[in-house]
């Protein structure tokens, strides 16, 4: 954790830590504490008086079917995004790991979407699948599908999942490729000598050896689906139609902004905080073990 020989100084180390500490206290801890405090308070309609109401805001939130619908939706989105993005990225990474001509070109052409911002992803996908002018929507209607994500909640949800998974492929691809390249080639050769065909080699050798990477990426993808999809949802559907794409984070935003329900919004924030703490803890416990596989 620390060097054997260090500098002696009374004030300098504090001065060096001070800027970061100030930012952290003012913009992280103070607001987080405020959120916790606010989640126990109730403001009257005119904002004139506030009273301490214990867990009333939480009870209120947890008794709303709307809230539970958002919770379930968030988890469904997370797993759908993680699954579709991870599986397609893994397929691509396994292919790109083969000794092919143009291997580095493939990598370049697959990793750049990492840099596309979520709101831009939203705009791109809206445009492709817009019911009246989208080029893919035209194709879907040609196939006899009644495509209208502006009215159909399930279609809107599908749209969000596809767009969010699309953006995440490059990230997963990169980490899968790194994971594959760290597996010694002799392991595959041994399996091949034993007569295992490629498919079998993948499921009995590659997949188990990749499991630390898969688990790590699963956590990262869930965190991504929880938080980074905000920009995609906000540009694509605004949580609609009829809240069909409202995730937990989006609901905090909407309830605090439009609803003006600050206590309820704060209670939801605190619940989200607990989820983040859980996810981060899982991530870090795993990282310690990652070194030894």
């Amino acid at each position, binding site marked *: 954790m620390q060097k054997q020989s*260090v500098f002696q100084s009374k004030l300098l180390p504090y001065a*060096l830590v001070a800027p970061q500490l100030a930012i952290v206290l*003012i913009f992280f801890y103070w607001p987080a504490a405020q959120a916790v405090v606010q989640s126990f308070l109730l403001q009257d309609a005119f904002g004139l008086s506030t009273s301490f109401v214990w867990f009333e805001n939480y009870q209120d939130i947890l008794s709303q079917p709307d809230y539970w619908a958002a919770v379930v939706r968030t988890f469904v989105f997370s797993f759908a995004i993680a699954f579709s993005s991870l599986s397609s990225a893994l397929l691509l990474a396994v292919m790109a790991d083969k000794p092919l001509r143009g291997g580095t070109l493939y990598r370049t052409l697959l990793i750049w979407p990492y840099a596309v911002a979520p709101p831009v992803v939203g705009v791109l996908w809206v445009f492709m699948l817009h019911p009246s002018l989208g080029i893919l929507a035209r194709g879907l209607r040609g196939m006899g599908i009644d495509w209208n994500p502006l009215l159909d909640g399930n279609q809107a949800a599908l749209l969000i999942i596809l767009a969010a998974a699309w953006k995440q492929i490059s990230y997963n691809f990169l980490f899968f490729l790194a994971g594959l390249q760290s597996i010694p080639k002799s392991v595959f050769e041994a399996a091949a000598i034993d007569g295992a065909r490629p498919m079998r080699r993948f499921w009995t050798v590659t997949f188990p050896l990749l499991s630390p990477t898969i688990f790590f990426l699963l956590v990262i993808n869930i965190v991504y689906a929880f938080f980074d999809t905000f920009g995609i949802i906000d540009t694509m559907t605004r949580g609609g139609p009829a809240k069909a794409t409202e995730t937990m984070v989006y609901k905090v935003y909407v309830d605090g902004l439009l609803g003006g329900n600050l206590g309820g*919004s704060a209670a939801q924030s605190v619940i989200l905080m607990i989820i983040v703490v859980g996810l981060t803890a899982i991530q870090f416990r795993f990282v310690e073990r990652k070194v030894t596989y």
Partner: protein
Amino acid sequence: MVEEEGIQRYVAHAILWIGIAIVAFPVYLAIVASTQENAVIANGQMSLLPGGHFLQTYYQTIFVGTSGSTREPVGTMLLNSLVMALLIAFGKIAISIISAYAIVYFRFPFRMAMFWMIFITLMLPVEVRIYPTYKIVADLRLLDSYAGLALPLIASATATLLFRQFFMTVPEELLEASRIDGAGPLRFFWDTLLPLSRTNMAALFVILFILGWNQYLWPLLITTRDDMQTIQIGIRKMITTTDALTEWPVVMATAVLAMLPPVLVVVVMQKLFVRGLVETEK
């Protein structure tokens, strides 16, 4: 060597090209749409080949903006995004490297407490403290300012951790040597540690620049003035009006301009990007 039969190799090439096509198609469509006429697009008659309005659309987008929804030219938004991204990237690196230096090279009361305080911010993303943070920035009168856009985001647990880890691998002898040369802590930091950290800083800069450029929720909350909008916010406002009024070529040109800087950074500085990405996730 494991056998790679010819047919398998073709399958691999084919799958990779399909993957690339899926990844690139939405962006290709945006580029094509930005060169066509709005009336054609709005009728659903868009062609899959580039049209002839490239210069006209991009000129209008950068210098004039849309006629209705955003009022500001996208050039202003690009500038705002650039300033914010650079402030965030440089700010995070600067304050993280000096706090990591203090934590590794000094022994002082509350050292570990401070380290943990920085570390735990990992668990407090802006999404879980939206409105209280907004209120503080409002109370500090930082709404609609570059400081308000960047300051609350420049704390960085990951960067601090990364520099800490790196400093731990720097040989002790370097410190001894520079001490014998009579160098104090600031001199050692500036003359020895900073040059050694160059690659790490560059890799981190690439990731943090992209992160800063792509910020969305925070600028959405604290910018109300049109001339302070970042490009990510501007693009959202362009599609808020009723569909019939959306100027799709301008919207798509804005999307292309919003993607260009971070995508270029990834492609041109690929090595640093990959390194930064892998390091920050450790």
